[in-house]
């Protein structure tokens, strides 16, 4: 509209309407006068586009965690590695990714060899429990096969990888994830490569004093590094567990 104002000044009465206009003015008039064909064209272009681009096969992760992930989510068919010392928040990161998957209507599975996952924490993280399967007490010899079988049908598989998992098995799982377009979230001693690495660096808790208060807010410092555009490490602080009642 700003462009249209000088135009009306220029076109004095009596001038023929077929007067050649500047390109910018022309575009403004065309855009303002006929929005419907433009939208129709865009729709046709959308329909005629040949392939789904790799960057669109993503599982969107909402919230601040998604903000620091490349493309705002997880690339389907890739391996995401999650690291962190116990207590730093690695398991919470895994649960956040599972919550994003189940919120998108996908199924998620956890291979929890030592039966350590807290189910209540999963529910609190927002994981839809009716679309979550947890495979517990998996012998190390069968670990690779179990994860591979899950990747066939489940969109996001989180595996707490035991010590002594062989790199060859890891490569096989990576290939399986790529082939089935699943996301393998590998926590623990993952010996293979990963398209994306999330490292829980530190959690600091507030709300708990010496003999008073309760665990409240947690600030989880997480570093994200990936391949390609995300090769530069990005660090963010996620705030979770803000208590409503307190």
């Amino acid at each position, binding site marked *: 509209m700003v462009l249209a104002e000088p135009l009306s000044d220029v076109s004095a009465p009596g001038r023929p309407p077929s007067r050649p206009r500047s390109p910018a003015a022309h575009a403004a008039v065309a855009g303002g006068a006929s929005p419907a064909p433009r939208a129709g064209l865009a729709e046709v272009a959308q329909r005629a586009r040949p392939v789904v681009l790799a960057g669109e096969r993503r599982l969107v992760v909402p919230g601040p965690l998604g903000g620091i992930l490349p493309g705002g989510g997880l690339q389907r068919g890739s391996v995401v590695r999650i690291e*962190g010392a*116990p*207590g*730093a*928040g690695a*398991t*919470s990161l895994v649960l956040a990714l599972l*919550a994003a998957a189940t919120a998108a*209507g*996908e*199924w998620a*599975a956890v291979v929890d060899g030592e*039966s*350590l*996952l*807290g*189910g*209540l*924490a*999963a*529910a*609190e*993280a*927002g*994981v*839809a*429990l*009716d*679309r*979550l*399967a*947890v*495979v*517990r*007490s*998996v*012998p190390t010899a*069968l670990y690779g096969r*179990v994860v591979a*079988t*899950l*990747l*066939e*049908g*489940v969109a996001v598989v989180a595996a707490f990888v035991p010590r002594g998992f062989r790199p060859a098995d890891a490569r096989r799982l990576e290939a399986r994830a790529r082939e089935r377009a699943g996301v393998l979230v590998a926590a623990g001693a993952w010996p293979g490569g990963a398209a994306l690495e999330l490292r829980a660096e*530190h*959690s600091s*808790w507030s709300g*708990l*004093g010496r*003999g*008073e208060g*309760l*665990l409240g807010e*947690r600030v989880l410092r997480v570093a994200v590094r990936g391949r390609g555009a995300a090769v530069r490490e990005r660090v963010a602080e996620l705030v*979770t*567990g803000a*208590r*409503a*009642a307190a």
Partner: protein
Amino acid sequence: MAAARMLCLWCPDWPVVAVRRADPALAGVPVAVLDRGFVLAASAEARAEGVRRGLRRREAEVRCPGLVLRPVDTVGEARAFETLVRAVETLAPRLALDRPGLLFVPTRGPSRYFGGDEAFATRVLAEAAGVDVPGARVGVADGTFAAGLAARRAASGGVFVVPAGGSAAFLAPWPVRVLDDGDLAGLLVRLGLPTLGDFTRLPEASVLGRFGLAGLAAHRRARGAEEHPPASRVPPPELELDDEFDPPVSRVDTAVFAGRALAERLLEELATDGLVCTRVRVEAETEHGERLARSWRLSAGAGAGAGSSPGSAILAERVRGQLEAWVNCDEGPGRGDGGRSADDDLVTSGLTRLRLVPEEVVVAGRSQLGLWGGDRAAAERAGRSLVRVQSLLEPEAVTTPVLQGGRTPDEQVAWVPWGEDPPLPPEQSRPPARPDRLDRCRGLCPTTVQTSPAGGAAGGNGVAAGWPGAIPPPAPAIVFRPPRPAELLAASGRRVTVSGRGEASAEPERLTSPSLPGGGGPVEGWAGPWLSDLRWWDPPARRRRALWQIVAAGVACLVSVEGGEAHLEAVYD
């Protein structure tokens, strides 16, 4: 999961019983009931002459010349059965009706009240005899399947009780054809497994791998382990269907017509969700505000398809029979006070509402589907790969967390094997009526309602609320089962203990555990101790422990102190 103890009341040849009730002159005369030219049921006198179910009319007449033949009268059967149901209902609630002539009662409460299964069963038989139903048989066993067979084992007018926990041994000698799965039974016989006992000796994982979920269900039934096929879940309320009548319907056939349409719609809607109803409650409301309800069991195979499948025909038949029975019920002798005398008003005041509530549904196919929407194809794919993992490991290895009541984060989650029932419906897993007396939680832990942000929406079983002494949120992401050893030390270097009054001996200064990074460290903050005194009325099983929330060396964890020993219960990872 142990199956609930069930009583089965079976009246053989119910069509004959119904015909004789309608026409007392037929007592002692050989009678057969015909369904489209074939014998459906025959009286004992007729059977003694060789009349069998499935005979042609002419052959039956040849075998037994004096045979009185009557056409099948489903409405009369349902009406006669209603009398019996009312009689049994005076003894026990929550009847599950299977078909006219067969009903199941969970015995847990009634048996305790009447002083044992035998006593309860005898009372049921007496009630049946009281409404003039001869030759009824009663079987009691763990699980519906075993109870049904126990009733078949019982003598006419007798009781057969399988002792608790004895269902597997009782079932073992039965032939596999009692599993109600013709294909499976034929295959098993050809494999050289003629009895249920032979079948149950196969490992569960192999059965699952070879025969799929239906085979696994049969395997569990054969073991007497579970009463329903796997994955029977409580359906969400939006699957209820109801029909309001304005003006009220006073004619039975109008109501029956509406009921049939309702039944078809219900099964169709369930079928689009890939579900099959195994138990449905028929509810009716009248103009005067009476509410009538009856639960009917439907066999799991019925109604696999939509529309005019046999399942919807059976369900429509049940609805029709029930409505007819309510409207035209003949009050039995001495039943005038029997709880539901308001039923007679149904005749004078019309029906205003008819509702079908699926009480129990199972997944129709071999694969599991999410009940609450989502992509069905994704659910099927996931279900298939989960079943494959189950056969790779063992069925119990693949679990789904289900929220339940409890105090510690570990107690608040039940890990239900994939495809099985959740342990108890949510209302039963709540604490007893007066938890303050049963579990004396005298801690400082806030007893306010715990509001987990996703708990309610997550599993449909959001029951994490309302347990006094529950550890408040957030929940720890790592829970050690069993707890790992730890040391909680005071500044003096001695262990911190907790007195019977819930007071700590000293302030904790240092928490060490091999499971913590760096072996632990100085305590930065703590809350607690919260004392929980579990099962104090049962000295051998009594546990007293104190729980602490502790942040040590930057790691938040949950520590328990029991008998002077500290354990690392969970880490807030």
